[in-house]
């Protein structure tokens, strides 16, 4: 159902940290008032106080604060907010929250509950993508049957290795790779039981398992008047345990001729499902072919690299679309220039990856042409053990990839953060790696590189 859009002058930000601050900045630039909700752990943070109003809604535990839908809606009512921006994570892809916000007469800055539900169900999403001509991983866009003979037949048709996935899964959970027929039924049985427990539905599906893919994303932006554009592509293959560490735009070595039709198909899919707001189509890319894996119906952590190359302020565009404005650009107006790289700076031990909480005693951020740092921390900030370890994003734009890599090396070298452990030493080392510098590494590269590094 398409919610009639309404104007608003106050936005409640149902999130924390750097993304809360990012949305505050966009609101301020557009003349909107920003209200930040926070937990007890965040109430004294400078970033929370930088909003027009901040309000503590509960204890530090996320279930009682950032995931507490009722407390957030009460805060919206209390502060007179007309819209809720969910940021990423927390409630950003929660269908019930999207519906509850709109049920309360407020604007949810994101897609409606139906679109989130469709794209959250992997089988429904794949079906919608096939219908729009988006290339998908070989395998039926239907739920896996229970009869062993039918399961064997599907796997044989796809060809081993295959991957069995939970329809309600995501983030690397609820999936199992099967190398040959002998292991198939046991893998299906185990994954089905995991899916039932973890995602509330035992529904599974099966796909071809790609062995050396890259992770490529396409950013889309849609208004409520049927207009949609794609803003270029990103490569997010540098991952550890399915968590992205470095992202870049554009994806190296992929020509416009090759990816153009895929971007156009993504736009068509959005128009077919009546999608509104920003979204990201995620693909695996191997041997010159793209395979759709899922759509994220929210702002992505890595959206700044697309902002830097396209020149489009994605958060401002989200706010404009939510106000019911018509997109100010057509596809022909979108041009991407240069190359951008984002490094996620995490409060974690660079060797063990254990989270590192505590007081930041000194902070000096890199500055210079093409350098942007999105962060909510400062000297004297206390990193809480309650939340995600992401404390800053270093975004660097250069005239081409080599230039962006060189500027990133310099920025990482001058990035000074003391008092807690961070992954800065790891990032500095990674940017000196020859294969990464060359580009086009696959999603397994970082894990292998880390093992080699430990062994050396």
């Amino acid at each position, binding site marked *: 159902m398409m919610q009639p859009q309404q104007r608003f002058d106050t936005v409640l930000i149902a999130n924390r940290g750097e993304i809360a601050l990012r949305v505050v900045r966009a609101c301020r630039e557009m003349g909107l008032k920003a209200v930040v909700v*926070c937990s*007890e752990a965040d*109430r004294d943070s400078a970033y929370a106080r930088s909003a027009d*109003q*901040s*309000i*503590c*809604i*509960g*204890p530090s535990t996320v279930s*009682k604060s950032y995931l*507490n*839908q*009722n*407390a957030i809606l*009460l*805060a919206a*009512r*209390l*502060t007179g907010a007309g819209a809720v921006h969910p940021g990423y994570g927390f409630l950003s892809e929660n269908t019930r929250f999207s519906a509850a916000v709109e049920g309360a007469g407020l604007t949810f800055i994101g897609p409606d509950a139906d679109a989130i539900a469709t794209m959250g169900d992997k089988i429904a999403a794949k079906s919608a993508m096939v219908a729009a001509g988006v290339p998908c991983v070989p395998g039926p866009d239907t739920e896996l049957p229970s009869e062993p003979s039918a399961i064997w037949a599907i796997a044989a048709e796809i060809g081993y290795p295959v991957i069995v996935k939970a329809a309600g899964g995501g983030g690397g959970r609820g999936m199992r790779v099967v190398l040959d027929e002998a292991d198939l039924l046991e893998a299906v049985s185990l994954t089905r039981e995991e899916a039932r427990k973890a995602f509330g539905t035992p529904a599974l599906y099966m796909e071809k398992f790609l062995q050396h893919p890259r992770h490529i994303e396409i950013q889309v932006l849609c208004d409520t008047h049927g207009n949609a554009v794609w803003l270029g592509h990103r490569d997010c293959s540098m991952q550890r345990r399915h968590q992205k560490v470095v992202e870049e735009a554009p994806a190296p070595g992929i020509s416009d001729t090759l990816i153009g039709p895929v971007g156009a198909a993504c736009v068509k899919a959005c128009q077919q499902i009546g999608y509104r707001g920003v979204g990201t189509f995620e693909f695996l890319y191997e041997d010159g072919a793209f395979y759709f894996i899922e759509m994220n119906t929210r702002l992505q952590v890595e959206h700044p690299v697309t902002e830097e190359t396209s020149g489009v302020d994605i958060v401002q565009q989200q706010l404009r679309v939510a106000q019911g404005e018509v997109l100010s650009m057509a596809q022909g107006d979108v041009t991407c220039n240069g190359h951008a790289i984002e490094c996620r700076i995490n409060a974690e031990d660079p060797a063990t990856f254990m989270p590192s909480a505590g007081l930041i005693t000194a902070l000096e951020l890199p500055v210079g042409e093409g350098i942007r740092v999105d962060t909510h921390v400062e000297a004297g900030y206390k990193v809480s053990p309650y939340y995600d370890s992401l404390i800053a994003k270093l975004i660097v734009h250069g005239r081409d990839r080599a230039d962006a890599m060189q500027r990133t090396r310099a920025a990482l070298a001058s990035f000074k953060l003391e008092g807690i452990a961070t992954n800065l030493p790891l990032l500095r080392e990674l940017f000196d790696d020859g294969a990464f510098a060359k580009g086009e590494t696959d999603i397994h590269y970082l894990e292998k590189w880390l093992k080699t590094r430990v062994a050396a």
Partner: protein
Amino acid sequence: MTKPDLSDPAIIERLTAALEAAGVDGIEITRRDQSLLIRLLGAANGPVRQLRSEKANAAGAVSIVKAPMAGEFWPSDLSRTGVPAVSAANDTVGFLRVGPILLPVVAGPAKRLRRHLVEPGTIVGFGDPIAEIEPEA
């Protein structure tokens, strides 16, 4: 079994919705550390929910009453003209208002209000100090 936090807005909302659905006009839950009173009242502007929760305070000197949820602080019940702001023992030290919800905040057993720490109409967050209380003489 985990004990629910009776000051959690989600719990209060859920209980209120259940009462409304069942056509019941109130419920009082009392246990050693917390108590909660929800009363559904008719009003000119539609149904008004009047809620009360309290946390027992340890006996001793001056202590602080903190807001159990975010709300607009008022020292007296705005829906009842002439109700005194200052409490007697175990009475309200003020109210938190969010739309139609009015949550009385009480001093606790054998306690009395010493002074308010926020001005009337101030928006307070969860855990913000709103009053000082002291043992009854």
